């Protein structure tokens, strides 16, 4: 190699979103001495939100790899260098030329293909087939597998947000010894996500002046409407919240430094559990004010599936202006959620339960009736608004919920 003509280009840890400050190298696809084409994947990285591949910024030979697998480094850190003056024909002691041959010899696992009936059932029930374990030959997903997934899906009645992830790790091969307990490795995506959630939540508690306001709403109208629409409570409440946010734009806002910016579009974050221990992610429905309750329902199901499959793009987890969380599917009746920074409020939809309530008929006579009731708990930031506005906003949500049609 003629070093006098060496020109190098740095490969850096990319910025994966405004709130993402660091990333972890998960795998190097190239070694020092390898030839790499521009835009070819040089390594895989993982942030607290998503996994991604880093494309080579230029064509050339990898001369240096500076960050090892498992290391977490700040955004813009140089990961590797590429010599762009090198020529592909030049021999190199370490040249890793068999990359193509390797790929042919050990092909990627065959893409999963699904039979017509499996695809139809999955489409009818909104099942993400990639997450369904197959028991057929070669791990093929059979009809009974997708039916089992449908059953697991339906078993929860009114779930779809905070249910356990349908993903199951591949069982260990028979006869194999019990896998050693996973080391507390830095690169373990689960612990990294837990750590990221913890840091994010603590930062929010330190930053915002949290206060929680609760109203109780009668879900009779929603109950009637949702069965005809085939929806869960969540998309309907989401639609009611969006309408209320248009009336009270002070809550559809984010802090940018010391400045509070009100947004025209409602980019609605919806918290999705990734399973008992796998953490939480908040996909964002951009411009949710343009979407009907039915559309929201579909978008939420789609985002939740793809969140659990790890397929969300960066744009789908950033830019939120308000967040809804819905752990009520598990029966909780009140909570004080932590605001998703830099937003100014988060609304928590709790379980809809039948309660005896006093209702007043049109002639003013009171009676005790059994109604499906739920608490709407909203944590808001005293730096941005005051309690009166929070209460007015929640009353507007309640009015929208009770008058749903």
């Amino acid at each position: 190699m003629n070093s006098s003509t060496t020109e190098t280009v740095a490969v850096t840890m990319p910025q994966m979103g405004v709130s993402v400050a660091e990333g972890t190298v998960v795998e190097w696809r190239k070694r020092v001495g390898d030839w790499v084409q521009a835009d070819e994947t040089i390594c895989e990285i993982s942030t607290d939100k998503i996994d991604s591949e880093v494309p080579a910024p230029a064509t050339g030979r990898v001369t240096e790899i500076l960050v090892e697998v498992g290391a977490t480094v700040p955004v813009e850190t140089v990961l590797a260098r590429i010599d762009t003056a090198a020529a592909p024909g030049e021999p190199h002691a370490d040249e890793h030329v068999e990359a193509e041959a390797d790929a042919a010899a050990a092909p990627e696992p065959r893409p999963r293909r699904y039979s017509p009936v499996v695809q139809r059932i999955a489409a009818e029930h909104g099942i993400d087939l990639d997450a369904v374990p197959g028991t057929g030959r070669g791990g093929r997903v059979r009809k009974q597998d997708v039916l089992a997934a449908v059953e697991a899906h339906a078993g929860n009645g009114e779930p779809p947000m905070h249910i356990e992830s349908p993903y199951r790790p591949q069982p260990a091969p028979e006869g194999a010894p019990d896998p050693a307990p996973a080391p507390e490795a830095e690169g373990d995506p689960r612990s990294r996500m837990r750590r990221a959630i913890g840091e994010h939540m603590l930062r929010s508690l330190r930053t915002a002046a949290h206060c929680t306001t609760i109203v109780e709403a009668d879900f009779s109208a929603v109950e009637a409407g949702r069965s005809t629409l085939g929806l869960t409570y969540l998309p309907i409440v989401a639609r009611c919240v969006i309408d209320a946010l248009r009336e009270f734009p002070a809550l559809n806002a984010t802090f940018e430094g010391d400045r509070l910016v009100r947004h025209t579009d409602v980019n609605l974050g919806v918290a999705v559990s990734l399973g008992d221990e796998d953490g939480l992610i908040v996909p964002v429905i951009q411009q949710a004010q343009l979407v009907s309750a039915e559309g929201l329902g579909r978008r939420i199901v789609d985002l939740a599936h793809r969140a659990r499959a790890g397929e969300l793009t960066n744009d789908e987890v950033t830019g939120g202006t308000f967040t809804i969380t819905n752990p009520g599917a598990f029966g909780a009746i009140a909570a004080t959620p932590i605001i998703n920074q830099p937003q100014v409020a988060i609304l928590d939809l709790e379980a809809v339960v039948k309660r005896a309530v006093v209702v007043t008929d049109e002639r003013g006579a009171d009676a005790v009736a059994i109604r499906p009731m739920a608490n709407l708990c909203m944590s808001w930031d005293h730096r941005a608004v005051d309690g009166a506005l929070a209460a007015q906003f929640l009353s507007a949500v309640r009015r929208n919920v009770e008058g749903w049609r």
Partner: protein
Amino acid sequence: MSERTYLQAISDGLREEMRADERVLCLGEDVGDFGGAFKVTDGFLEEFGEQRVMDTPLAESGIVGTAIGAAVVGMRPVCEMQFADFIACGFDQLVNVAGKMHFRQGLAVPITVRLPSGGGFSGGPFHSQNPEAWFMHAPGIKVVAPATAEDAKGLLIAAIRDPNPVCFLEHKHLYRRVKGEVAAGTYETPMAARVARPGEDLVVIAYGAMVHTALEATEDLGGARVEVLDLRSLVPLDEAAILDSVRRCSKVVVLDEANRTCAAGAEVASLIAERGFEDLDGPVVRLSTPDVPIPFSPPLEQAVLPSVDRVKEACSELLDY
């Protein structure tokens, strides 16, 4: 009700229908004095006389042609082929004359052609064939193939009463092996499929003797619930029943004893591919006899006919898919 063999049930059906309807007559080689090659018409000559039980020369085209003429003037003839294979000699009368009569002249030809068919008894290439597909391919002819004694009687009566020419495939291997409770008196079995055993993991679609092969092969397949659909009628083909089974089971083995190419099972498989596609969870598997004449040699014959073991293997294979 009484227990009857498949053969006795056919004999009963014919006799009772002849008693019930004086337009019904039977004709064929040795059906009179001798009582038929397999004794289906034993005693018929004494009971019904030679006007209604007619011995014919060795001439299948004459038997079918005579029956067509009688049918056109109002009779309900039942022709016996000694072996289904011999219908080849009556092919022109059956396919070109009987099958087209309604379309050319607007005349009904209510004849029934009894076709003792199938192998399994070392009958060799001329006495073991399953020629049903020849007639499925010819418009204007119905084709039925019972698997049980009860259906043999009911389908024969239904065939006699049908205004169209009907080929009645009676499987020789079932004659004395299959027994069942058969109702007394005349009754008709619908020309439609029947679920011989309900299931939901896989369906074997068969007719005639292969229904029994299918039932035996899938009785115990590691707990799998295997459906067996007995077609009973090939023309008309019970498309609704086939598609219904496919919808429930999603995996299909189509089994027939005839030579593979263009057999009844090919038509069933094509129907499923076209109209059951979205219900399928695996390839439609066909089992049949390869495209060879049936050998005399008993081990060779057993090697070409679909056996219980072959059906078992194919079903297990598909269940695992």
